[in-house]
Protein backbone atom coordinates (compact mmCIF):
# COMPACT_ATOMS: atom_id res chain seq x y z
CA UNK A 1 0.00 0.00 0.00
CA UNK A 2 2.78 2.40 0.98
CA UNK A 3 4.76 1.57 -2.11
CA UNK A 4 1.71 2.23 -4.23
CA UNK A 5 1.25 5.62 -2.56
CA UNK A 6 4.87 6.59 -3.20
CA UNK A 7 4.72 5.57 -6.85
CA UNK A 8 1.41 7.37 -7.31
CA UNK A 9 2.92 10.46 -5.70
CA UNK A 10 5.91 10.33 -8.06
CA UNK A 11 3.65 9.98 -11.08
CA UNK A 12 1.43 12.88 -10.00
CA UNK A 13 4.37 15.25 -9.36
CA UNK A 14 5.85 14.20 -12.69
CA UNK A 15 2.63 15.01 -14.50
CA UNK A 16 2.30 18.34 -12.69
CA UNK A 17 5.85 19.35 -13.59
CA UNK A 18 5.48 18.25 -17.22
CA UNK A 19 2.08 19.75 -17.85
CA UNK A 20 3.03 23.14 -16.40
CA UNK A 21 1.98 25.94 -18.74
CA UNK A 22 5.02 27.63 -20.24
CA UNK A 23 3.27 30.88 -21.10
CA UNK A 24 4.06 33.42 -18.45
CA UNK A 25 1.16 35.81 -18.12
CA UNK A 26 2.05 37.32 -14.72
CA UNK A 27 4.78 39.78 -13.80
CA UNK A 28 5.90 37.81 -10.76
CA UNK A 29 6.53 39.17 -7.27
CA UNK A 30 8.72 41.99 -6.09
CA UNK A 31 10.72 41.98 -2.84
CA UNK A 32 11.13 45.35 -1.13
CA UNK A 33 10.31 47.41 -4.21
CA UNK A 34 11.38 50.62 -2.48
CA UNK A 35 12.92 52.31 -5.46
CA UNK A 36 11.40 50.20 -8.19
CA UNK A 37 8.36 52.29 -8.95
CA UNK A 38 8.63 55.97 -9.69
CA UNK A 39 6.81 58.37 -7.37
CA UNK A 40 6.56 60.87 -10.19
CA UNK A 41 4.47 60.06 -13.24
CA UNK A 42 6.63 58.33 -15.80
CA UNK A 43 5.99 57.72 -19.47
CA UNK A 44 4.20 54.40 -19.96
CA UNK A 45 4.42 53.53 -16.29
CA UNK A 46 1.08 52.37 -14.90
CA UNK A 47 -0.51 55.72 -14.23
CA UNK A 48 -2.92 54.58 -11.57
CA UNK A 49 -6.56 55.33 -11.20
CA UNK A 50 -6.21 59.04 -10.50
CA UNK A 51 -4.79 59.94 -13.91
CA UNK A 52 -7.18 57.62 -15.64
CA UNK A 53 -10.15 59.19 -13.90
CA UNK A 54 -9.07 62.65 -14.97
CA UNK A 55 -8.84 61.43 -18.56
CA UNK A 56 -5.21 62.46 -18.93
CA UNK A 57 -4.13 60.52 -21.98
CA UNK A 58 -1.63 62.17 -24.22
CA UNK A 59 -2.68 60.84 -27.57
CA UNK A 60 -4.79 63.77 -28.70
CA UNK A 61 -3.67 66.32 -31.25
CA UNK A 62 -1.66 69.27 -29.94
CA UNK A 63 -3.34 72.64 -29.73
CA UNK A 64 -3.47 74.27 -33.15
CA UNK A 65 -0.42 76.38 -33.88
CA UNK A 66 1.68 74.70 -31.19
CA UNK A 67 5.37 74.54 -32.00
CA UNK A 68 7.34 71.80 -30.29
CA UNK A 69 10.72 72.63 -28.81
CA UNK A 70 13.34 72.45 -31.54
CA UNK A 71 10.66 72.43 -34.24
CA UNK A 72 11.09 74.80 -37.20
CA UNK A 73 7.84 76.76 -37.47
CA UNK A 74 4.16 76.02 -37.88
CA UNK A 75 2.88 75.17 -41.32
CA UNK A 76 0.08 77.66 -41.77
CA UNK A 77 -1.93 76.29 -44.72
CA UNK A 78 -5.20 74.58 -43.82
CA UNK A 79 -6.10 71.02 -44.68
CA UNK A 80 -8.63 71.83 -47.40
CA UNK A 81 -8.70 72.08 -51.17
CA UNK A 82 -7.73 75.75 -51.12
CA UNK A 83 -4.73 74.97 -48.92
CA UNK A 84 -3.77 72.15 -51.27
CA UNK A 85 -3.72 74.50 -54.26
CA UNK A 86 -1.84 77.19 -52.35
CA UNK A 87 0.77 74.71 -51.16
CA UNK A 88 2.27 74.54 -54.66
CA UNK A 89 3.91 77.92 -54.06
CA UNK A 90 5.46 76.94 -50.71
CA UNK A 91 9.22 76.54 -50.91
CA UNK A 92 11.40 74.38 -48.72
CA UNK A 93 13.07 76.42 -45.97
CA UNK A 94 16.10 74.11 -46.00
CA UNK A 95 19.28 75.02 -47.79
CA UNK A 96 19.79 72.27 -50.33
CA UNK A 97 23.53 71.88 -49.68
CA UNK A 98 23.16 71.56 -45.92
CA UNK A 99 20.71 68.64 -46.02
CA UNK A 100 22.10 65.41 -44.61
CA UNK A 101 21.03 63.13 -47.46
CA UNK A 102 22.08 59.99 -45.61
CA UNK A 103 19.71 60.81 -42.77
CA UNK A 104 17.02 61.83 -45.29
CA UNK A 105 17.38 58.47 -46.99
CA UNK A 106 17.07 56.69 -43.66
CA UNK A 107 13.91 58.63 -42.87
CA UNK A 108 12.49 57.80 -46.30
CA UNK A 109 13.27 54.09 -45.98
CA UNK A 110 11.79 53.85 -42.48
CA UNK A 111 8.62 55.86 -43.05
CA UNK A 112 7.89 55.87 -46.79
CA UNK A 113 9.75 52.93 -48.33
CA UNK A 114 7.29 50.43 -46.90
CA UNK A 115 4.68 51.59 -49.46
CA UNK A 116 6.48 53.75 -52.02
CA UNK A 117 9.35 51.27 -52.32
CA UNK A 118 13.05 51.55 -51.63
CA UNK A 119 13.46 52.44 -55.33
CA UNK A 120 10.63 54.99 -55.13
CA UNK A 121 8.75 52.93 -57.70
CA UNK A 122 5.51 52.79 -55.75
CA UNK A 123 5.97 49.09 -55.15
CA UNK A 124 7.02 48.61 -51.54
CA UNK A 125 6.59 45.39 -49.54
CA UNK A 126 3.08 46.42 -48.44
CA UNK A 127 1.83 46.59 -52.05
CA UNK A 128 4.08 44.09 -53.86
CA UNK A 129 2.45 44.63 -57.27
CA UNK A 130 -1.00 44.01 -55.82
CA UNK A 131 -0.07 40.88 -53.82
CA UNK A 132 0.54 42.72 -50.56
CA UNK A 133 -2.17 43.64 -48.06
CA UNK A 134 -2.37 47.30 -49.10
CA UNK A 135 -5.34 47.94 -51.37
CA UNK A 136 -4.41 51.16 -53.16
CA UNK A 137 -1.34 51.47 -55.34
CA UNK A 138 1.15 53.84 -53.70
CA UNK A 139 2.36 56.73 -55.86
CA UNK A 140 5.22 55.97 -58.23
CA UNK A 141 7.52 58.76 -57.14
CA UNK A 142 10.22 58.19 -59.73
CA UNK A 143 8.98 57.53 -63.25
CA UNK A 144 5.51 59.05 -63.07
CA UNK A 145 5.22 62.46 -64.74
CA UNK A 146 2.51 63.62 -62.32
CA UNK A 147 4.71 63.19 -59.26
CA UNK A 148 7.87 64.37 -60.98
CA UNK A 149 6.12 67.62 -61.87
CA UNK A 150 4.51 67.99 -58.44
CA UNK A 151 5.74 71.01 -56.49
CA UNK A 152 7.69 70.26 -53.29
CA UNK A 153 5.20 72.36 -51.34
CA UNK A 154 2.31 70.18 -52.53
CA UNK A 155 4.23 67.07 -51.52
CA UNK A 156 4.88 68.60 -48.11
CA UNK A 157 1.20 69.43 -47.76
CA UNK A 158 0.25 65.83 -48.58
CA UNK A 159 2.78 64.37 -46.16
CA UNK A 160 1.66 66.75 -43.42
CA UNK A 161 -2.08 66.20 -43.73
CA UNK A 162 -2.31 62.96 -45.68
CA UNK A 163 -3.77 62.54 -49.15
CA UNK A 164 -6.23 59.93 -50.40
CA UNK A 165 -5.24 56.62 -48.77
CA UNK A 166 -2.06 58.01 -47.23
CA UNK A 167 -2.30 59.18 -43.63
CA UNK A 168 -0.71 62.20 -42.03
CA UNK A 169 2.96 61.83 -41.12
CA UNK A 170 3.08 64.95 -38.99
CA UNK A 171 3.15 62.85 -35.84
CA UNK A 172 6.03 60.68 -37.00
CA UNK A 173 8.24 63.21 -38.79
CA UNK A 174 9.06 66.72 -37.63
CA UNK A 175 8.69 69.63 -40.06
CA UNK A 176 12.39 69.55 -40.82
CA UNK A 177 12.37 65.80 -41.31
CA UNK A 178 9.43 66.06 -43.72
CA UNK A 179 11.26 68.64 -45.81
CA UNK A 180 14.34 66.41 -45.74
CA UNK A 181 12.36 63.45 -47.04
CA UNK A 182 10.91 65.58 -49.83
CA UNK A 183 14.38 66.85 -50.74
CA UNK A 184 15.46 63.21 -50.94
CA UNK A 185 12.54 62.33 -53.23
CA UNK A 186 13.24 65.34 -55.45
CA UNK A 187 16.93 64.43 -55.68
CA UNK A 188 16.02 60.87 -56.66
CA UNK A 189 13.57 62.14 -59.26
CA UNK A 190 16.26 64.38 -60.74
CA UNK A 191 18.70 61.45 -60.78
CA UNK A 192 16.07 59.22 -62.42
CA UNK A 193 15.35 61.84 -65.05
CA UNK A 194 18.98 62.25 -66.09
CA UNK A 195 19.36 58.46 -66.16
CA UNK A 196 16.32 57.87 -68.39
CA UNK A 197 17.15 60.76 -70.71
CA UNK A 198 20.69 59.45 -71.04
CA UNK A 199 19.36 55.97 -71.87
CA UNK A 200 16.79 57.46 -74.22
CA UNK A 201 19.43 59.55 -75.96
CA UNK A 202 21.47 56.39 -76.46
CA UNK A 203 18.59 54.40 -77.89
CA UNK A 204 17.08 57.25 -79.91
CA UNK A 205 20.06 57.07 -82.20
CA UNK A 206 19.11 53.49 -82.99
CA UNK A 207 15.35 53.39 -82.51
CA UNK A 208 12.85 56.06 -83.28
CA UNK A 209 10.04 55.17 -80.86
CA UNK A 210 12.32 56.02 -77.94
CA UNK A 211 11.78 59.70 -78.74
CA UNK A 212 8.25 59.30 -77.53
CA UNK A 213 9.31 58.48 -73.99
CA UNK A 214 11.75 61.38 -73.96
CA UNK A 215 9.06 63.89 -74.83
CA UNK A 216 6.76 62.36 -72.23
CA UNK A 217 9.38 62.68 -69.50
CA UNK A 218 10.11 66.28 -70.46
Amino acid at each position, binding site marked *: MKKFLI*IAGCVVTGIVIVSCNHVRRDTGRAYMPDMAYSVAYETYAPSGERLKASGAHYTGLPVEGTIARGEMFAYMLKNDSAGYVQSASVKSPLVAESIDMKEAQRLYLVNCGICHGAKLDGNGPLYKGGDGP*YLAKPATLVGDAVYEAMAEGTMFHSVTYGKNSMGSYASQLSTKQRWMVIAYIKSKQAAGKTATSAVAADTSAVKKPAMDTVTKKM
Partner: protein
Amino acid sequence: MISCKPITQKLTLAFLIFFSFSGIKIFAQDGKALFQSKCASCHNVFKDVTGPMLGGVIDKEYYGGDMKKIYNWIYGVNTLINSDPHYMDLKKQYGSVMTQFERNSLPEKDIDAIFAYIKVTFETPTTREPKDPLKPETSSNQNAVIFGVISLILAIIALILMQVNSNLKKMSDDAEGIGRPEPVPFYRNKVYIAMVALVFFVVGGFYVTKGAIGLQRQKDYQPEQPIYYSHKVHAGINQISCLYCHGNAWESKHAAIPSVNVCMNCHKSITEYVKGPELFNEAGKKIDGTAEIKKLYEYAGFDPLKPNAWDPSKAKPIEWVKIHNLPDHVYFNHSQHIRAGNVQCQTCHGEITAMDEVKQFSELSMGWCINCHRQSKVNFNYSDSTGNKFYSIYEKFHNDIKSGKMDSVTVKDIGGLECQKCHY
Protein backbone atom coordinates in the same frame (compact mmCIF):
# COMPACT_ATOMS: atom_id res chain seq x y z
CA MET B 1 6.70 14.38 -98.22
CA ILE B 2 2.95 14.09 -98.41
CA SER B 3 2.64 13.08 -94.78
CA CYS B 4 4.50 16.22 -93.82
CA LYS B 5 1.76 18.52 -94.96
CA PRO B 6 -0.74 17.82 -92.16
CA ILE B 7 2.05 18.17 -89.61
CA THR B 8 3.02 21.60 -90.90
CA GLN B 9 -0.64 22.53 -90.94
CA LYS B 10 -1.04 21.40 -87.36
CA LEU B 11 2.12 23.23 -86.41
CA THR B 12 0.93 26.50 -87.94
CA LEU B 13 -2.44 26.02 -86.25
CA ALA B 14 -0.71 25.40 -82.94
CA PHE B 15 1.43 28.47 -83.44
CA LEU B 16 -1.62 30.51 -84.32
CA ILE B 17 -3.45 29.34 -81.21
CA PHE B 18 -0.38 29.93 -79.08
CA PHE B 19 0.04 33.44 -80.39
CA SER B 20 -3.60 34.31 -80.05
CA PHE B 21 -3.57 33.10 -76.44
CA SER B 22 -0.38 34.94 -75.65
CA GLY B 23 -1.98 37.97 -77.30
CA ILE B 24 -4.88 37.75 -74.85
CA LYS B 25 -2.45 37.38 -72.03
CA ILE B 26 -0.57 40.48 -73.12
CA PHE B 27 -3.91 42.29 -73.29
CA ALA B 28 -4.80 41.34 -69.73
CA GLN B 29 -1.26 42.14 -68.54
CA ASP B 30 -1.60 45.54 -70.19
CA GLY B 31 -4.87 46.04 -68.37
CA LYS B 32 -3.15 45.26 -65.07
CA ALA B 33 -0.27 47.65 -65.75
CA LEU B 34 -2.65 50.37 -66.90
CA PHE B 35 -4.92 49.82 -63.92
CA GLN B 36 -1.98 50.06 -61.55
CA SER B 37 -0.54 53.19 -63.11
CA LYS B 38 -3.77 55.09 -63.76
CA CYS B 39 -6.41 53.90 -61.31
CA ALA B 40 -4.96 51.88 -58.44
CA SER B 41 -3.88 54.80 -56.27
CA CYS B 42 -7.55 55.48 -55.55
CA HIS B 43 -9.50 52.43 -56.73
CA ASN B 44 -9.36 48.78 -55.76
CA VAL B 45 -11.11 45.91 -57.54
CA PHE B 46 -12.62 44.42 -54.39
CA LYS B 47 -13.02 47.27 -51.92
CA ASP B 48 -13.83 50.93 -51.62
CA VAL B 49 -10.66 52.91 -50.99
CA THR B 50 -10.41 56.62 -51.80
CA GLY B 51 -12.85 55.96 -54.62
CA PRO B 52 -15.47 53.24 -55.13
CA MET B 53 -14.50 49.63 -55.83
CA LEU B 54 -14.37 48.87 -59.54
CA GLY B 55 -15.20 45.15 -59.53
CA GLY B 56 -18.71 44.78 -60.95
CA VAL B 57 -19.18 48.53 -61.30
CA ILE B 58 -20.04 48.12 -64.97
CA ASP B 59 -23.01 45.91 -64.10
CA LYS B 60 -24.48 48.43 -61.69
CA GLU B 61 -27.84 49.97 -62.49
CA TYR B 62 -26.43 53.32 -63.51
CA TYR B 63 -24.09 51.87 -66.14
CA GLY B 64 -26.03 48.76 -67.10
CA GLY B 65 -23.01 47.30 -68.90
CA ASP B 66 -22.66 50.32 -71.15
CA MET B 67 -19.00 51.25 -71.66
CA LYS B 68 -20.05 54.55 -73.30
CA LYS B 69 -21.19 55.89 -69.94
CA ILE B 70 -17.82 54.93 -68.48
CA TYR B 71 -16.01 56.86 -71.22
CA ASN B 72 -18.33 59.83 -70.72
CA TRP B 73 -17.45 59.90 -67.03
CA ILE B 74 -13.71 59.46 -67.44
CA TYR B 75 -13.42 62.16 -70.10
CA GLY B 76 -16.00 64.47 -68.57
CA VAL B 77 -15.49 64.30 -64.81
CA ASN B 78 -15.34 68.07 -64.35
CA THR B 79 -18.76 68.74 -65.91
CA LEU B 80 -20.59 65.59 -64.76
CA ILE B 81 -19.61 66.02 -61.12
CA ASN B 82 -21.79 69.12 -60.85
CA SER B 83 -24.62 68.10 -63.19
CA ASP B 84 -25.29 64.37 -62.83
CA PRO B 85 -27.09 63.45 -59.55
CA HIS B 86 -25.44 59.98 -59.53
CA TYR B 87 -21.97 61.48 -59.37
CA MET B 88 -23.05 64.25 -57.00
CA ASP B 89 -24.17 61.52 -54.58
CA LEU B 90 -20.84 59.72 -54.99
CA LYS B 91 -18.97 62.94 -54.30
CA LYS B 92 -20.93 63.39 -51.10
CA GLN B 93 -20.14 59.79 -50.09
CA TYR B 94 -16.41 59.78 -50.86
CA GLY B 95 -15.58 63.45 -50.31
CA SER B 96 -13.14 63.70 -53.20
CA VAL B 97 -13.35 64.02 -56.97
CA MET B 98 -11.59 61.88 -59.55
CA THR B 99 -9.02 63.44 -61.85
CA GLN B 100 -10.35 63.85 -65.39
CA PHE B 101 -8.47 62.01 -68.16
CA GLU B 102 -7.88 63.22 -71.71
CA ARG B 103 -8.41 60.99 -74.72
CA ASN B 104 -4.76 61.17 -75.78
CA SER B 105 -3.40 60.14 -72.37
CA LEU B 106 -5.95 57.34 -71.85
CA PRO B 107 -7.59 56.22 -75.13
CA GLU B 108 -10.79 54.16 -75.15
CA LYS B 109 -8.96 50.92 -75.91
CA ASP B 110 -6.90 51.38 -72.73
CA ILE B 111 -10.10 51.82 -70.71
CA ASP B 112 -11.40 48.62 -72.33
CA ALA B 113 -8.20 46.82 -71.34
CA ILE B 114 -8.50 48.11 -67.77
CA PHE B 115 -12.11 46.96 -67.48
CA ALA B 116 -11.24 43.58 -69.02
CA TYR B 117 -8.59 43.16 -66.31
CA ILE B 118 -11.03 44.25 -63.60
CA LYS B 119 -13.65 41.76 -64.83
CA VAL B 120 -11.19 38.86 -64.93
CA THR B 121 -9.79 39.70 -61.47
CA PHE B 122 -13.19 40.25 -59.92
CA GLU B 123 -14.59 36.98 -61.18
CA THR B 124 -11.64 34.88 -59.99
CA PRO B 125 -12.30 34.49 -56.27
CA THR B 126 -9.33 32.17 -55.65
CA THR B 127 -6.91 35.09 -55.41
CA ARG B 128 -8.59 36.16 -52.17
CA GLU B 129 -8.06 32.90 -50.25
CA PRO B 130 -5.52 32.93 -47.43
CA LYS B 131 -2.24 31.36 -48.37
CA ASP B 132 -0.06 28.70 -46.71
CA PRO B 133 -1.66 28.33 -43.29
CA LEU B 134 0.91 27.63 -40.61
CA LYS B 135 0.14 25.28 -37.78
CA PRO B 136 1.28 26.31 -34.32
CA GLU B 137 4.44 24.57 -33.22
CA THR B 138 3.90 22.01 -30.50
CA SER B 139 7.02 19.91 -30.97
CA SER B 140 8.94 21.43 -28.03
CA ASN B 141 6.01 20.77 -25.69
CA GLN B 142 5.72 17.20 -26.94
CA ASN B 143 9.44 16.70 -26.38
CA ALA B 144 9.13 17.78 -22.75
CA VAL B 145 6.27 15.32 -22.19
CA ILE B 146 8.24 12.49 -23.79
CA PHE B 147 11.31 13.22 -21.64
CA GLY B 148 9.17 13.35 -18.52
CA VAL B 149 7.51 10.00 -19.26
CA ILE B 150 10.84 8.34 -20.06
CA SER B 151 12.48 9.54 -16.84
CA LEU B 152 9.45 8.38 -14.82
CA ILE B 153 9.62 4.91 -16.40
CA LEU B 154 13.36 4.72 -15.74
CA ALA B 155 12.86 5.72 -12.11
CA ILE B 156 10.21 3.04 -11.63
CA ILE B 157 12.44 0.41 -13.28
CA ALA B 158 15.30 1.43 -10.99
CA LEU B 159 13.06 1.06 -7.94
CA ILE B 160 11.86 -2.38 -9.07
CA LEU B 161 15.41 -3.54 -9.77
CA MET B 162 16.53 -2.41 -6.32
CA GLN B 163 13.65 -4.34 -4.78
CA VAL B 164 14.46 -7.43 -6.86
CA ASN B 165 18.09 -7.13 -5.86
CA SER B 166 17.34 -7.06 -2.14
CA ASN B 167 14.86 -9.94 -2.51
CA LEU B 168 17.42 -12.05 -4.38
CA LYS B 169 20.03 -11.25 -1.74
CA LYS B 170 17.63 -12.34 0.97
CA MET B 171 16.91 -15.59 -0.92
CA SER B 172 20.59 -16.36 -1.41
CA ASP B 173 21.22 -15.65 2.26
CA ASP B 174 18.39 -18.00 3.17
CA ALA B 175 19.77 -20.71 0.85
CA GLU B 176 23.25 -20.40 2.36
CA GLY B 177 21.77 -20.47 5.82
CA ILE B 178 23.18 -17.15 6.95
CA GLY B 179 20.83 -15.73 9.46
CA ARG B 180 20.57 -11.98 9.23
CA PRO B 181 18.50 -9.68 11.37
CA GLU B 182 15.29 -8.41 9.82
CA PRO B 183 16.36 -5.46 7.59
CA VAL B 184 15.39 -1.96 8.70
CA PRO B 185 12.62 -0.54 6.48
CA PHE B 186 14.04 2.06 4.12
CA TYR B 187 12.23 4.99 5.72
CA ARG B 188 14.04 4.29 8.98
CA ASN B 189 17.37 3.53 7.33
CA LYS B 190 19.72 6.34 8.38
CA VAL B 191 21.70 6.25 5.15
CA TYR B 192 18.52 6.64 3.11
CA ILE B 193 17.24 9.46 5.30
CA ALA B 194 20.58 11.28 5.06
CA MET B 195 20.60 10.88 1.26
CA VAL B 196 17.05 12.15 0.89
CA ALA B 197 17.76 15.08 3.22
CA LEU B 198 20.84 15.98 1.22
CA VAL B 199 19.03 15.79 -2.09
CA PHE B 200 16.15 17.79 -0.64
CA PHE B 201 18.56 20.42 0.68
CA VAL B 202 20.39 20.78 -2.62
CA VAL B 203 17.28 20.83 -4.82
CA GLY B 204 15.30 23.00 -2.43
CA GLY B 205 18.21 25.37 -2.02
CA PHE B 206 18.60 25.63 -5.77
CA TYR B 207 14.96 26.55 -6.28
CA VAL B 208 14.86 28.95 -3.33
CA THR B 209 17.93 30.79 -4.61
CA LYS B 210 16.61 30.81 -8.14
CA GLY B 211 13.26 32.11 -6.96
CA ALA B 212 14.87 34.81 -4.84
CA ILE B 213 17.05 35.98 -7.72
CA GLY B 214 14.02 35.94 -9.99
CA LEU B 215 12.02 38.24 -7.73
CA GLN B 216 10.98 41.29 -9.70
CA ARG B 217 12.44 39.87 -12.89
CA GLN B 218 10.12 39.20 -15.76
CA LYS B 219 11.95 37.13 -18.33
CA ASP B 220 9.46 35.36 -20.63
CA TYR B 221 6.66 37.65 -19.45
CA GLN B 222 4.06 37.48 -22.21
CA PRO B 223 0.88 39.27 -21.19
CA GLU B 224 -2.31 39.18 -23.19
CA GLN B 225 -2.70 42.49 -24.99
CA PRO B 226 -5.97 44.33 -25.64
CA ILE B 227 -5.54 43.63 -29.35
CA TYR B 228 -3.81 40.56 -30.74
CA TYR B 229 -1.09 42.48 -32.54
CA SER B 230 1.35 40.19 -34.31
CA HIS B 231 4.88 41.54 -34.72
CA LYS B 232 5.50 38.56 -36.98
CA VAL B 233 2.89 39.74 -39.47
CA HIS B 234 3.88 43.41 -39.34
CA ALA B 235 7.65 43.46 -38.90
CA GLY B 236 8.31 39.97 -40.25
CA ILE B 237 6.09 39.20 -43.22
CA ASN B 238 5.32 42.77 -44.24
CA GLN B 239 8.82 44.04 -43.44
CA ILE B 240 7.74 47.22 -41.70
CA SER B 241 10.77 48.84 -40.09
CA CYS B 242 10.73 48.77 -36.28
CA LEU B 243 11.29 52.52 -36.34
CA TYR B 244 8.13 53.14 -38.37
CA CYS B 245 6.07 52.64 -35.22
CA HIS B 246 8.77 52.97 -32.55
CA GLY B 247 10.52 55.95 -34.15
CA ASN B 248 11.17 57.54 -30.77
CA ALA B 249 13.74 54.84 -30.05
CA TRP B 250 16.01 56.75 -32.41
CA GLU B 251 15.50 60.05 -30.70
CA SER B 252 14.64 59.54 -27.06
CA LYS B 253 14.83 57.44 -23.96
CA HIS B 254 11.61 55.61 -24.75
CA ALA B 255 10.92 53.42 -27.75
CA ALA B 256 7.35 54.78 -27.61
CA ILE B 257 4.15 52.94 -28.30
CA PRO B 258 2.61 54.23 -31.53
CA SER B 259 -0.57 56.23 -31.21
CA VAL B 260 -3.71 55.03 -32.98
CA ASN B 261 -3.20 57.33 -35.97
CA VAL B 262 0.05 55.50 -36.80
CA CYS B 263 -1.87 52.20 -36.96
CA MET B 264 -4.48 53.89 -39.09
CA ASN B 265 -1.90 55.08 -41.66
CA CYS B 266 -2.14 51.59 -43.13
CA HIS B 267 -5.32 50.22 -41.59
CA LYS B 268 -7.43 52.95 -43.16
CA SER B 269 -7.18 50.82 -46.27
CA ILE B 270 -6.19 47.41 -44.88
CA THR B 271 -9.52 46.50 -43.31
CA GLU B 272 -9.21 42.75 -43.18
CA TYR B 273 -6.60 40.04 -42.65
CA VAL B 274 -6.72 37.66 -45.59
CA LYS B 275 -3.32 37.32 -47.19
CA GLY B 276 -1.12 36.22 -44.30
CA PRO B 277 -0.76 32.85 -42.54
CA GLU B 278 -3.33 31.71 -39.99
CA LEU B 279 -2.78 33.17 -36.54
CA PHE B 280 -2.85 31.37 -33.20
CA ASN B 281 -2.42 32.64 -29.68
CA GLU B 282 -0.16 30.97 -27.13
CA ALA B 283 -2.97 28.72 -25.95
CA GLY B 284 -3.32 27.43 -29.51
CA LYS B 285 -6.62 29.17 -30.10
CA LYS B 286 -7.17 30.43 -33.63
CA ILE B 287 -7.25 34.20 -33.99
CA ASP B 288 -9.39 36.02 -36.51
CA GLY B 289 -7.17 38.82 -37.79
CA THR B 290 -10.07 40.75 -39.29
CA ALA B 291 -11.84 40.80 -35.91
CA GLU B 292 -8.65 42.17 -34.31
CA ILE B 293 -8.53 44.98 -36.90
CA LYS B 294 -12.18 45.70 -36.00
CA LYS B 295 -11.04 46.16 -32.39
CA LEU B 296 -8.58 48.80 -33.60
CA TYR B 297 -11.45 50.59 -35.37
CA GLU B 298 -13.36 50.62 -32.08
CA TYR B 299 -10.50 52.51 -30.44
CA ALA B 300 -9.98 54.78 -33.44
CA GLY B 301 -13.66 55.51 -33.82
CA PHE B 302 -13.29 54.59 -37.49
CA ASP B 303 -16.13 53.32 -39.64
CA PRO B 304 -14.74 51.43 -42.65
CA LEU B 305 -17.93 52.19 -44.57
CA LYS B 306 -17.41 55.93 -44.13
CA PRO B 307 -13.63 56.34 -44.23
CA ASN B 308 -13.75 60.05 -45.01
CA ALA B 309 -15.83 60.90 -41.96
CA TRP B 310 -13.04 59.70 -39.64
CA ASP B 311 -11.71 62.23 -37.15
CA PRO B 312 -8.33 61.12 -35.71
CA SER B 313 -8.63 63.45 -32.75
CA LYS B 314 -11.61 61.43 -31.45
CA ALA B 315 -9.55 58.26 -31.16
CA LYS B 316 -9.24 56.61 -27.76
CA PRO B 317 -5.82 55.30 -26.73
CA ILE B 318 -5.22 51.58 -26.67
CA GLU B 319 -3.92 50.56 -23.26
CA TRP B 320 -1.23 48.09 -24.21
CA VAL B 321 0.30 46.11 -21.37
CA LYS B 322 3.89 47.14 -20.78
CA ILE B 323 6.18 44.13 -20.97
CA HIS B 324 9.70 45.46 -20.39
CA ASN B 325 9.87 47.13 -17.00
CA LEU B 326 13.05 48.45 -15.48
CA PRO B 327 13.05 49.56 -11.83
CA ASP B 328 12.95 53.30 -11.33
CA HIS B 329 16.50 53.34 -9.96
CA VAL B 330 17.91 52.34 -13.34
CA TYR B 331 18.34 54.76 -16.21
CA PHE B 332 18.09 53.30 -19.67
CA ASN B 333 18.07 55.23 -22.92
CA HIS B 334 17.06 53.70 -26.24
CA SER B 335 18.63 56.28 -28.54
CA GLN B 336 21.96 55.98 -26.73
CA HIS B 337 22.02 52.28 -27.55
CA ILE B 338 20.56 52.03 -31.03
CA ARG B 339 21.78 55.30 -32.52
CA ALA B 340 25.12 55.94 -30.87
CA GLY B 341 25.85 52.31 -30.03
CA ASN B 342 24.45 50.77 -33.21
CA VAL B 343 22.81 47.93 -31.26
CA GLN B 344 20.12 46.04 -33.16
CA CYS B 345 16.64 45.84 -31.62
CA GLN B 346 16.87 42.04 -31.72
CA THR B 347 19.95 41.98 -29.48
CA CYS B 348 17.80 42.77 -26.45
CA HIS B 349 14.28 42.02 -27.67
CA GLY B 350 15.01 38.69 -29.31
CA GLU B 351 13.67 37.59 -32.65
CA ILE B 352 10.77 39.98 -32.56
CA THR B 353 10.01 39.44 -36.26
CA ALA B 354 9.04 35.84 -35.46
CA MET B 355 6.87 36.59 -32.42
CA ASP B 356 3.10 36.69 -32.68
CA GLU B 357 2.62 37.60 -29.05
CA VAL B 358 5.65 39.45 -27.75
CA LYS B 359 7.46 38.09 -24.75
CA GLN B 360 10.38 39.44 -22.81
CA PHE B 361 13.44 37.84 -24.30
CA SER B 362 16.18 39.17 -22.04
CA GLU B 363 16.52 39.02 -18.31
CA LEU B 364 17.01 42.81 -17.99
CA SER B 365 19.06 42.12 -14.88
CA MET B 366 22.13 44.07 -13.92
CA GLY B 367 24.39 41.11 -14.64
CA TRP B 368 22.94 40.93 -18.13
CA CYS B 369 23.59 44.64 -18.76
CA ILE B 370 27.12 44.53 -17.39
CA ASN B 371 27.99 41.43 -19.37
CA CYS B 372 27.03 43.14 -22.61
CA HIS B 373 28.97 46.27 -21.65
CA ARG B 374 32.04 44.11 -21.05
CA GLN B 375 31.78 42.36 -24.40
CA SER B 376 30.43 44.99 -26.80
CA LYS B 377 33.06 46.64 -28.89
CA VAL B 378 32.83 50.35 -29.59
CA ASN B 379 33.28 51.61 -33.13
CA PHE B 380 36.28 53.83 -32.52
CA ASN B 381 37.01 54.81 -36.13
CA TYR B 382 35.99 58.40 -35.69
CA SER B 383 38.02 59.51 -38.69
CA ASP B 384 35.72 57.91 -41.26
CA SER B 385 31.98 58.56 -41.39
CA THR B 386 30.92 55.30 -39.69
CA GLY B 387 32.23 56.13 -36.23
CA ASN B 388 31.23 58.70 -33.65
CA LYS B 389 33.36 61.85 -33.52
CA PHE B 390 32.87 61.95 -29.75
CA TYR B 391 35.33 59.10 -29.29
CA SER B 392 38.20 61.26 -30.51
CA ILE B 393 38.60 62.49 -26.92
CA TYR B 394 39.86 59.07 -25.76
CA GLU B 395 43.38 59.82 -26.85
CA LYS B 396 45.00 57.18 -24.67
CA PHE B 397 42.97 54.36 -26.23
CA HIS B 398 43.73 55.57 -29.74
CA ASN B 399 47.44 55.58 -28.92
CA ASP B 400 47.17 52.12 -27.35
CA ILE B 401 45.42 50.75 -30.43
CA LYS B 402 48.07 52.27 -32.65
CA SER B 403 50.91 50.80 -30.59
CA GLY B 404 49.15 47.42 -30.47
CA LYS B 405 48.57 47.38 -26.71
CA MET B 406 44.81 47.06 -27.26
CA ASP B 407 43.03 45.46 -30.16
CA SER B 408 39.58 46.81 -29.45
CA VAL B 409 37.75 49.09 -27.04
CA THR B 410 34.68 47.82 -25.21
CA VAL B 411 31.91 49.80 -23.51
CA LYS B 412 33.57 48.91 -20.21
CA ASP B 413 36.71 50.86 -21.16
CA ILE B 414 34.82 54.08 -21.77
CA GLY B 415 33.03 53.98 -18.44
CA GLY B 416 30.26 51.47 -19.12
CA LEU B 417 30.69 49.89 -15.69
CA GLU B 418 30.57 53.12 -13.69
CA CYS B 419 27.68 53.00 -11.20
CA GLN B 420 26.62 56.52 -12.07
CA LYS B 421 26.20 55.67 -15.74
CA CYS B 422 22.90 53.99 -14.94
CA HIS B 423 22.14 54.72 -11.29
CA TYR B 424 21.75 58.34 -10.27
